């Protein structure tokens, strides 16, 4: 029996479910409402955003309005605006009487027209109706009767009451005629009125234009318009849809202010009383860089191609920003936002527009190149030369084999022909042999082409690190193992990373390097003058790339090595050679034979042991040799004595004596060599250094071109996968304090299982993912520690995050075909040789030299700014200058253009390829059309020459006082280039602009402005004109330019000797600029 007692009433039929039903139904209905709410708002959070936006933005516009009407008032008080207003009022007064009359007539005509029109249209409607009936009536008789009716109606007279009270009767045709007449009259009258008012409207338009041009903010009307739009806004998805690129971006459904014409900050959109901007306020800020939107129209580019995130998603912030597990392209964090540039601008080395530079991504690109990342990692577009050379080399090999075979076959055929039975057969075989010979001569031509190509490529090919074949000649033997232990201990800013080598590996590697190095004998040099060397080091421009001093004391550029302790490691004789010409090789290298060529090879062929860019053929096989050290360090064209002085100075830069390094006898142990080779290969040393036996080693690292879009599963977080995914305590695997300090955001607390986290940790401590793993020496991660700073890690991370395979169509890639392409290509060369260390290319860009102490009071000693170089100089001349900045083959220890500068424009030995790129770059940067066709300069008459000469040598503008003349005595104190160069070097247009207002072209130049003033559309000399000018009507400026372009050396000497040179020569050099300006001022009436 059941335990429970049997109930009294039937439990099935007697039980009521009313309560259950009521409760269930109520819950069901509530759920239904919940579903409706979820549908309308829950799944559409952007509606809340738009609600908030309406309130906050309208409130913001209310305050903005008062601000801007104030600024309108201030503009209205400008004298220029007052003048415009006066013009307007005058025009208004002048036309008033006429306009009033015209208006009166027009009003009258309009009133009459109205009177006629009402009657006429009424009657015309009736006529039209009757005509329709006529057209549609069936029989001829009916048609006739209708016609009669129409005629009758048309003949009837209708009364028109004119505005002046008169009444007139018209038949229908008369009415029609009158109507047309009055209408024409009115049209004519309104045209007349327009003519009368034309000057008034024009003046008014000018006035309005002035206001809108000079308003800081928007006009009240514009603000009113914005406000209207905000208050009348109905919630709706705002979407950019670009079908061709598959972009659907609904970002602006929340980010409503992105494209507003005025700057809206998050702070401005914060509700009153709130301390921090909430998520609404942050969403309503306008785009941080509106100028970017100008060049990337959102209607074409959308948002997500640059910022990433899920443009289609609207259900939550996380979804829209793509910050969830399954969205592969999450929004770039703010600090990495420039990563987006890389998806279309991977072919650019420098991203700049006007004077804005995008530094994070630019630095990332720079670092990738300068730190030698591409020595181990392939990256599309970086360091292409080795691959190209390899390809060319393979082709050469193939052709050579083909040639050999052909020669052999030819001989065989000839032999067969000799033994042939009939003449026919012999002839045929001979023809075949001749064909093969012709083929071989074609192959020779191709070989020549390929050799030419490899000549240029080898000239362009550079390595990040020094040539280690010279290690024996260059280095203190005992220093090498100490250096390899941890390079940053010796030189904290070095590019050489720390490979975490064991002592044994260090011994083996140094033994290999030492034993494979060249053993040639270097010429001995006597010690130089260290003090003079220091002066030269600081003056010649070495510090644009190199630095001296450590820590806070560091002065100079970071492009090349810090030389504070160079005296401990270097060999003096080698250093002299290096400073004199860093490109000079000990022995040339033949990539075809894969060996270094020595004097014995030349002797075999009875050739002199001479190799340079003009003698680059291999004595053994005739192919191109690598005749230069693959360094970007240029030749400063120093005299041997100067090189000795600098080397002596540098050798004195040390913290301890070179002899104090412990003896490293193991480096001569031949048994270590083989093992050393293994490690040198294993660590990919050949990626950055030239090492004997490693010339053809491939890159050991993974390709990084698309590293940013590699699936996260393919990035090996090793034992930290869980830790990185979960965050929280213990999320940070890096323990080392120094490495920890490299993380841009400090130790991780949040989950960091993403590309950013992986890259940052990898860059901060490259072996972090080996932590806790049991690995042998050859399994361990090889990437060395680059001892980067926080900022550098951020820059490189940004660069790598942006390195993605984009889904955008090809047309979105920035690959312009026009002059912009020249700019794009040129930057690669400019950056390669650190031109920006000395020269300014972008307005406002700081060069390294500008930051140096010695130039603070001697701005005129800075190298020229190159902002308008393309407009200034003749491209052909520029090409010549860049290949030989001394502009002379004999007198090379000088600057060709500016002998007065201590700092030296070095000889970079650019290849033809790079010269072309650079010249085109400068032309394109200054928007110069290519090709450049030089202007024909008019020949001056004797009188004109006299006049010009008097201007040229006048006391008001003594040109030769500052400009160099070639007279050594004078040139010592000159501060401007020689005029004799002008003819070949400069563009006449530019010279005219330059002598008018040099300050506008190159702010801070010592060339005075205000030499000419404008008079009746002519430029005339601002100083007292020499008497010869009486009666001269022409342009003084043009005359002087023509004269300069015709100046001969003889003429210049004559003028110079006639000038009171002594005065200029006496002036102390520091006051020179000042004095020159002053004299100009007094002469030019202070019109500067």
């Amino acid at each position: 029996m059941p335990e429970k007692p049997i109930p009294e009433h039937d439990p099935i039929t007697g039980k009521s479910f009313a309560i259950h039903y009521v409760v269930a139904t109520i819950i069901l209905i509530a759920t239904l409402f919940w579903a409706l709410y979820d549908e309308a708002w829950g799944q559409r959070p952007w509606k809340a955003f738009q609600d908030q936006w309406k309130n906050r933005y309208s409130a913001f516009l209310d305050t903005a309005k008062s601000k801007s009407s104030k600024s309108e008032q201030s503009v209205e008080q400008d004298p220029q605006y007052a003048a415009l207003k006066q013009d307007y009022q005058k025009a208004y007064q002048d036309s008033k009487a006429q306009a009033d009359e015209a208006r009166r007539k027009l009003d009258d005509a309009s009133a009459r027209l109205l009177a006629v029109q009402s009657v006429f249209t009424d009657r015309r409607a009736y006529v039209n109706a009757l005509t329709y009936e006529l057209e549609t009536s069936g029989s001829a008789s009916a048609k006739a009767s209708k016609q009669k009716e129409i005629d009758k109606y048309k003949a009837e007279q209708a009364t028109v009451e004119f505005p002046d009270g008169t009444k007139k009767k018209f038949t229908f045709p008369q009415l029609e005629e009158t109507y047309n007449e009055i209408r024409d009259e009115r049209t004519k009258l309104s045209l007349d009125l327009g003519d009368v008012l034309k000057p008034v409207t024009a003046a008014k338009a000018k006035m309005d234009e002035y206001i809108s041009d000079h308003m800081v903010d928007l006009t009240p009307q514009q603000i009113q318009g914005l406000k209207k739009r905000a208050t009348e806004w109905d919630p709706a998805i705002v979407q950019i849809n670009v079908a061709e690129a598959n972009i659907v971006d609904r970002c602006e459904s929340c980010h409503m202010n992105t494209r507003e014409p005025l700057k809206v900050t998050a702070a401005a959109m914060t509700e009153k009383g709130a301390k921090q901007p909430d998520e609404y306020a942050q969403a309503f800020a306008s785009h941080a860089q509106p100028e970017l939107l100008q060049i990337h129209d959102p209607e074409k580019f959308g948002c997500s191609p640059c910022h990433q995130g899920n443009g289609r998603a609207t259900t939550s912030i996380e979804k829209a920003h793509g910050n969830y597990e399954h969205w592969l392209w999450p929004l770039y964090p703010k600090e990495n936002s420039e990563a987006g540039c890389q998806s279309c601008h991977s072919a650019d080395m420098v991203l700049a527009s006007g004077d804005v530079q995008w530094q994070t991504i630019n630095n990332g690109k720079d670092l990738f190149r300068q730190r030698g990342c591409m020595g181990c990692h392939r990256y599309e577009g970086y360091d292409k030369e080795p691959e190209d050379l390899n390809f060319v080399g393979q082709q050469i090999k193939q052709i050579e084999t083909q040639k050999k075979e052909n020669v052999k076959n030819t001989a065989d055929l000839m032999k067969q022909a000799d033994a042939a039975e009939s003449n026919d057969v012999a002839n045929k075989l001979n023809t075949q042999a001749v064909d093969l010979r012709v083929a071989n001569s074609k192959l020779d031509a191709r070989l020549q082409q390929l050799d030419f190509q490899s000549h240029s490529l080898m000239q362009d090919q550079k390595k990040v690190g020094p040539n280690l074949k010279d290690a024996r000649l260059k280095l203190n033997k005992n220093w090498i193992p100490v250096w390899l232990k941890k390079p940053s201990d010796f030189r904290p800013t070095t590019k050489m990373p720390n490979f975490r080598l064991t002592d044994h590996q260090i011994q083996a590697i140094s033994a290999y390097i030492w034993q494979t190095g060249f053993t040639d004998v270097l010429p001995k040099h006597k010690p130089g003058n260290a003090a003079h060397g220091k002066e030269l080091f600081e003056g010649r421009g070495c510090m644009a790339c190199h630095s001296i001093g450590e820590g806070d004391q560091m002065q100079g550029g970071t492009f090349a090595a810090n030389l504070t302790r160079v005296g401990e490691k270097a060999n003096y004789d080698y250093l002299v050679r290096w400073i004199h010409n860093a490109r000079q090789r000990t022995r040339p290298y033949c990539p075809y034979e894969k060996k270094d060529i020595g004097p014995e090879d030349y002797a075999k062929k009875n050739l002199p042991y001479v190799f340079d860019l003009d003698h680059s053929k291999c004595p053994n096989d005739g192919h191109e040799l690598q005749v230069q050290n693959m360094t970007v360090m240029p030749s400063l064209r120093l005299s041997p004595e100067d090189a000795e002085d600098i080397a002596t100075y540098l050798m004195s830069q040390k913290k301890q004596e070179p002899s104090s390094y412990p003896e490293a006898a193991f480096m001569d142990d031949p048994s270590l060599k083989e093992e050393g080779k293994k490690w040198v290969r294993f660590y990919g040393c050949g990626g950055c250094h030239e090492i004997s036996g490693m010339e053809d080693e491939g890159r050991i690292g993974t390709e990084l071109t698309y590293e940013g879009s590699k699936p996260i599963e393919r990035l090996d977080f090793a034992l930290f996968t869980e830790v990185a995914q979960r965050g929280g305590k213990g999320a940070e695997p890096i323990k080392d304090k120094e490495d920890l300090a490299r993380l841009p955001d400090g130790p991780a607390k949040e989950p960091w299982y993403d590309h950013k986290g992986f890259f940052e940790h990898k860059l901060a401590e490259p072996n972090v993912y080996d932590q806790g793993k049991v690995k042998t020496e050859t399994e361990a991660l090889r990437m060395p520690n680059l001892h980067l700073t926080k900022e550098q890690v951020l820059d490189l991370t940004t660069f790598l995050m942006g390195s993605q395979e984009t889904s955008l169509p090809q047309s979105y890639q920035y690959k312009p075909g026009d002059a912009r392409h020249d700019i794009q290509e040129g930057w690669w060369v400019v950056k390669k040789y650190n031109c920006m260390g000395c020269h300014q290319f972008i307005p406002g860009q700081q060069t390294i030299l500008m930051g140096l102490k010695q130039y603070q009071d001697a701005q005129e000693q800075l190298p020229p700014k190159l902002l308008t170089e393309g407009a200034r100089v003749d491209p052909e001349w520029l090409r010549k200058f860049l290949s030989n900045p001394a502009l002379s083959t004999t007198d090379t220890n000088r600057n060709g253009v500016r002998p007065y500068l201590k700092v030296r424009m070095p000889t970079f030995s650019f290849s033809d390829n790079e010269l072309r790129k650079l010249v085109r770059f400068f032309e394109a940067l200054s928007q110069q059309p290519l090709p450049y066709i030089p202007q024909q300069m008019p020949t001056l008459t004797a009188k004109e020459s006299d006049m010009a000469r008097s201007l040229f040598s006048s006391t008001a503008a003594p040109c030769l006082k500052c400009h160099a003349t070639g007279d050594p005595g004078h040139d010592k104190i000159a501060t401007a280039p020689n005029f004799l160069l002008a003819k070949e070097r400069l563009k006449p247009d530019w010279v005219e602009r330059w002598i008018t207002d040099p300050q506008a072209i190159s702010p801070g130049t010592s060339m005075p402005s205000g030499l000419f003033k404008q008079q009746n559309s002519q430029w005339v000399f601002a100083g007292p004109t020499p008497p010869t000018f009486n009666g001269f009507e022409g342009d003084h400026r043009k005359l002087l330019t023509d004269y300069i372009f015709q100046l001969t050396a003889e003429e210049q000497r004559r003028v110079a000797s006639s000038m009171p040179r002594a005065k200029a020569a006496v002036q102390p050099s520091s006051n020179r600029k000042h004095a020159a300006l002053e004299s100009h001022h007094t002469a030019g009436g202070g019109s500067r």
Partner: protein
Amino acid sequence: MDWRQLWEICSAPDNVPIVGLIPLLAFYIYLAVKQARANDQLIEQLEADPAMAKTHHRKTWPFKPGWQKEVHVWPFLLRIEFLAAIIITIILMVWSITLNAPLEEPANPNLTMNPAKAPWYFLGLQEMLVYFDPWIAGVVMPTLIIIGLMVIPYIDTNPLGSGYYTWKQRKFSISTFLFGFIILWVAMIIIGTFIRGPGWQWFWPGQTWDHNRLIYEVNRDLPDIFGITSNLGKAIFGAIVVGGYYLVGGGAVYSLFRRRMGKDFSRMSLLQFSIMQFLLLTMVALPLKMGLRLLWHIKYVWITPWFNI
């Protein structure tokens, strides 16, 4: 104990049904057992006292005056069913509002997910793939399951237990069902959901699913253990073992029925009995094979050029 890992598995929208299934299954089994026990006690009483049987028409409770003798479907059943329908509607609506479809990134043929899992209700079948060839686990077994379910009415010769819960009268049917559903279906799904991690490796609940985990596991075939190397030998050996299993098992089933279920046995034809016997032995073979694999790392028993079992 890695609670977070456990939470990640349980909270995945994919796994909500299986997480719900476990307590529900326990509850309904408890309910059924409870009612079956009550009925069994009553049956015992009624069998002992035939007079009492006449006063009983609602099985558990004796007849009371004033109670309806028969209860109609409408409204008495339907009103409960309708209430249930409302509650189910509520549950479905709340579920669909709060949990979105578990969509993932676009499929990438170069990068498959790990572990790649079927929908929860197929995880049992997927788990079988570990123990059998794909065509056996994926084609033969499901076919047998369906055929087995279809033939139940034709081989079930026990007329008792219709319309009420009872254990005593249907011991064989109920244990076979519980074995098939709970062990062979639900337990396999639980293994597939909670136990199988990256690389389809065996992770105990609360063990971290480490993608880098390495384990040492060498599987052998049964003939290898006996040192049989030739292909023919393996095929013959396997055939003997499998045949032996069906023979011995068949004998065991036969004696079980003869001794314990004589009534049912006598009602069954030879065809009915042999089909039942085959299906039952095949069912039992599955956990046996799993045990061989999991405990002794035995991969196959019967190896032929055409199929492996």
